[in-house]
Structures are given as structure tokens and as C-alpha cells.
């Protein structure tokens, strides 16, 4: 969880049950390798730039694993199933819109978002 949140600059938090689904879909060895290179180091990174600066993503396997974690979290999809639609980062990170099937209020769509 700490790794996932560092990948988003700790701007978002991931629910445990959803995070567990993403974790289960990752290659365990690749995940362990990225965890060891990041949040298990003496100075754990707190932001994505920290991770970049540490050089952990120079390793192609680590870079691909980080990309996969973010893809799961942004899409809310894992192994062709929906793990979490309403809190998928594709929606949550937008700011100006909310997930389809939830309301923004009448007639907010007519206005420029603040």
C-alpha cells in the first residue's frame, strides 16, 4: 500500500480490499523486487520523483511493475474484472467530473468548473 501511494505522490489512498486484488494480479517476484528497491530501503520514497531519483526504475522490470500498478489503480480493472469503479483514479484524479452514475448536480455541466 505504501508503494502504491508513493507512486501517486501520496495524493490518493487505496482501499485494502482493492489493493489486495491488484497485488494478487502482479508477478510476486517482480513486486517484491520493486518493494525492496523502494519502500524497504533505509530512506523510503514518499513521492514518485523520490522513486525516480533513487534509480529504482532504471531497472526495466521495476519500471514495468510500477506502470502496471498505476494502470490497475487508474482503470479500476484487474484481470478483466472491475475491482473498483467509483474510486478508480481515472475518475478520482480528474477533479472536474465525478464517476458516471454519480451526480454533479443541476446544472453544473453548464458552467466552467472552478
Amino acid at each position: 500500500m505504501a508503494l502504491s501511494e508513493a507512486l501517486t505522490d501520496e495524493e490518493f489512498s487505496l482501499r485494502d480490499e482493492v489493493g489486495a486484488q491488484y497485488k494478487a494480479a502482479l508477478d510476486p517476484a517482480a513486486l517484491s523486487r520493486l518493494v525492496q528497491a523502494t519502500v524497504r530501503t533505509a530512506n523510503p520514497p514518499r513521492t514518485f520523483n523520490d522513486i525516480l531519483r533513487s534509480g529504482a526504475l532504471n531497472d526495466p522490470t521495476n519500471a514495468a511493475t510500477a506502470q502496471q500498478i498505476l494502470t490497475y489503480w487508474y482503470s479500476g480493472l484487474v484481470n478483466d474484472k472491475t475491482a473498483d469503479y467509483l474510486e478508480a483514479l481515472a475518475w478520482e484524479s480528474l477533479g472536474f467530473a465525478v464517476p458516471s452514475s454519480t451526480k454533479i448536480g443541476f446544472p453544473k455541466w453548464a458552467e466552467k468548473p472552478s
Partner: protein
Amino acid sequence: MTIRTDVVVVGSGVAGALVADRLQRSGRSVTILEAGPPIDRDQAVEVFRAATAKVPESPYPNTDWAPHPTVLEIGVPGTGYFFQNGPDPFGSTYERIVGGTTWHWLGSCPRLLPSDFQLHTLFGVGVDWPITYNDLEPWYVKAEHEIGVAGNDNAPQGSPRSAGFPMPAVPTSYLDKIVNQAANRIGLKVEATPQARNTETFNDRHHCVGNSNCIPICPIGAKYDALIHLDRAVENGAKLISNAVVWDVLLNADGTARGVVYRRPDRSDETVLANVVVMAANAIETPKILLSANGGRGVGNSSGLVGRNLMDHPIQLSYALSGEPVFPQRGPLSTAGIESTRQAATRNLHSAFRVEIGNDGWKFPIGDPTFEFANQSNGTFVQLREGGNALAQRWRDHVSKEIRFGSLMEQLPNPDNRIVPDFTRLDAIGLPRPRISFTIGAYVRDGMAEATALHERLFDQLKATERTHVGFPFGAGHVMGTTQMGADPARSVTDGDGRSHDVPNLFVAGSSLFPTVGTANPTLTLAALALRTADVIRRS
């Protein structure tokens, strides 16, 4: 047990629901037969949220006994409910559930233009309707009040009005305003679309609160659906039977209709005897039943035209990123369009079209913003070694500029475009699946080229990048033709009232009646026709 009723209505979508409601209130006993099951709205919303592809059909069951076509299967040979006989795939889908496709329709309610009723006279192509715009105009007014249309009284958009809308217009989106500025610079105008979407409490239903999910399901029922009239018909004594798949129309010795036979999921059959039969099962299922009936010899088909002249509004779809943020993904999926192109003087040469402006970004028709991270062909939006706020900002900037135009083409009637029951391909309860032969045709493709050019001009004005013009037409979900109305029994299936030329107590309701399809989304017109037909039945 045989059921006896004054009127049996086959199909519970908007046409069937309006006819049933009107006739039940006039004192007739009405039985409505729906092939599919009833739907629980809250449960369907959860099914939508769990679906991996947010297609129009995603919240709804696809039952063994009432299967329906799906967007995901269209164009994939050998899959799905339709047998696509080609050469082009028929791209539109529908629901077979209580309430029909009003569950997933967009809600747009423009009227046809007066010229749409005289296409052959004015442009030398297609055919004329047996009725005029003026004949239908009072029924448009009634339909707008029945289903609750919000619109601008001062913007007739080429269709003269004798009365105002029952509700003020749905406010256009911020995106519409930006597109309108671009359109103005090339002499065009973006106008609010009349919509069956509440802008104030109407008939005890809540106003729209911007759930941004008209397709596939409005979570609160602010958009009209046929349940409103079905519920009222049932409250007034109508009988609604779900999971009842009609497959036969019974005839008396004198050629009049005696009733229908439906099949249950367990394959048992039931008979409904009626004085009047109304076929309102949409422009695929209605001809399928009529052609399957009477031992496969067909009913009401002396013209040989049942199932022929299948039409759609094939869509030219274009995407881009606007030069400035337009903030889509908020509110009704479309609130405005460009209407002047519907009245093009070149309808003798190619399709006229209506430009629908999407508020739904790039998600039409199977996606959602989440889809851009799990797109099997394009991969993920996330780049390697990208994350944190930089990724979030790039994503926010990207989505805020997403824009979509969909131009809906007028397709001409072509008797070779047809649906027939395929008795060699049966569904799970032993009934034939639809076999569809379909060609888009040069008239539409030339119209699509015109639309693409217009989209390009708009994109130029918007300083748009990443422009994509989809190279094939999407189905609009507007299934039309197949039991066309007309004055000549040799050249049409019903008269101008929707009454079969061959079977005087057999009526058809729905967009299958359309002789030509114009460029208006069809629901309001089919609703007006259904109310008019109900009145004919009531007076008969």
C-alpha cells in the same frame, strides 16, 4: 389457460407502453406481452459499475429466452444474437426487457422536418410518407407532454410548433458553448437539443442531477423510460406479462387476427385471444414475428415487404483534443447539436445529417475514461517511468480537452436491407434468430464524407489535435423501417394509421413504420405515431 383481452400489445418499449396506457385508460382491457424480464434499477446500476466494458447493454440481462444484440458482438463474425449476412454489419442494438430500449436510450427528442415526409417529391430519392408533418404535428405535441420533453419554445429547429414544450430546455454544457463559438466562426450554430429529461419535477419524477450516465442507465429515472406508462397502464388494470416471447399471430378464417401465442422460458406455449393485436416489438422483432407466424407463411405480408427496408442512422464519429479545456464527462451525454445540416439542399445526392455534440469525451460507445488505461489495442495511458502528480496532471489535461462529434446520417430505404427469421439458427427456446442483410450504401458514405469535412472545419476552429475520424459507421441504435406505412398496399405493409393492409385488426407501432428516417432521433416520432394509432384503435 387461454387469456382473453380486448387488445394484446406485443412489446413493452415506448410504443407499446403508450398504446397500452392510452387504450387501458379508454376502457379497453389490455394485455402487454414482453419477451424479457423486469429490471430493478438500483441493481442494474450496480451491474453497470461492475461491468468491464460500459456498453449500452451492460446493466441488463441477456437471457437465454430473449437474447439481444450487443455492441461488443456487432461485426465479430459468428458471435451474437444476429446472424449478420452482410455485406456490412448492422450496427444497432436493443434491449429485450420490460421497458425495452428506453432503459438505455439517450433521450434526444427532435422532431422530423416537414421535408422529411416528402423526400421523394422534394429530392427525388426515397419515398414520401402517407401522412404529412401537419398531420402528425398535434401528436408531436401530445407525445412531448406524455414523455416529458424539455426544450426551447423559441427554437423550432425547422419543425413548426403549435404549442410549447412542457418543460424549459436542458441547459447546454460548457463544452457546447465552446463548440458554438467555433461553429459561429464558420457560419454555423449550436442549438439545445429537445430532450426527454426533466428540468423540473414532472409527473412525480425528479429533475436531472447530472449523473452523466443516460446511456446505459439513468440512476434516478429523470430521463423518460417506458415504465412510466407501463406502470400507469397496470395501475389502471392492464395485465403485463414478462418473459413471454411472442412467436405466432393467430388468424380467423376471414383473415382477421384472433390473437397471439407466446413461449415461456420453459418452452411451454400460451395463447392470448384478442380483438385487436398491436405489434410493438421493434423493427427487428416485429417483422421477425410476422414472418415466422402462420406456420412460417407470414402474416400481413401480401406486399412481400415485411422485414425489408431496414434502416439506421449510421454515425460518422470523430474525436479530437480541443485546443482549450472543454470539461466533458459532466451532465447529460449530449445536450446540443448542429441542426442546419439536416436541411441540406443536396439530399438528392447524399445523406443529410444531424451533428450530435457529445459531452461524453471519448467514451462512445464501449468505454469510459477508465477504458483509456486498459485499452487492448492502444495499451495504457500511463507511460513507462511516469507517475505521481505529473501523471495525474497530464491525465486531467487530456480528458478536459476530449471532444466528440457524431453525425447521424439519413439512410434511404433499400428493399435488399432486410431481416428474416433464420429457421436454421434457433435460440434456446427454439425460435429463429434474425438473419440480417445490410448495406450502408454510397448515399450514406458520401454523407459521411461531408460530415467528416465539417468535423474537420470545426476541429480547425477549436485548434484541435489528435484528430480521429472513424473509418466505418457506428450504429445509432435507431432501428427503423421493416413494416413501412404507405398508401399503396402493394408497396407498403400498413396504412398511414399503422393498420395492416391485409389484417384489419392488426396494428404496428414503432419506428418499423417509418417509410424514410430523416435525421431526427426516432423516439419522439414513433411515440407520436403510437398515440395516433392508439386513437384510431380507441375510435374503432
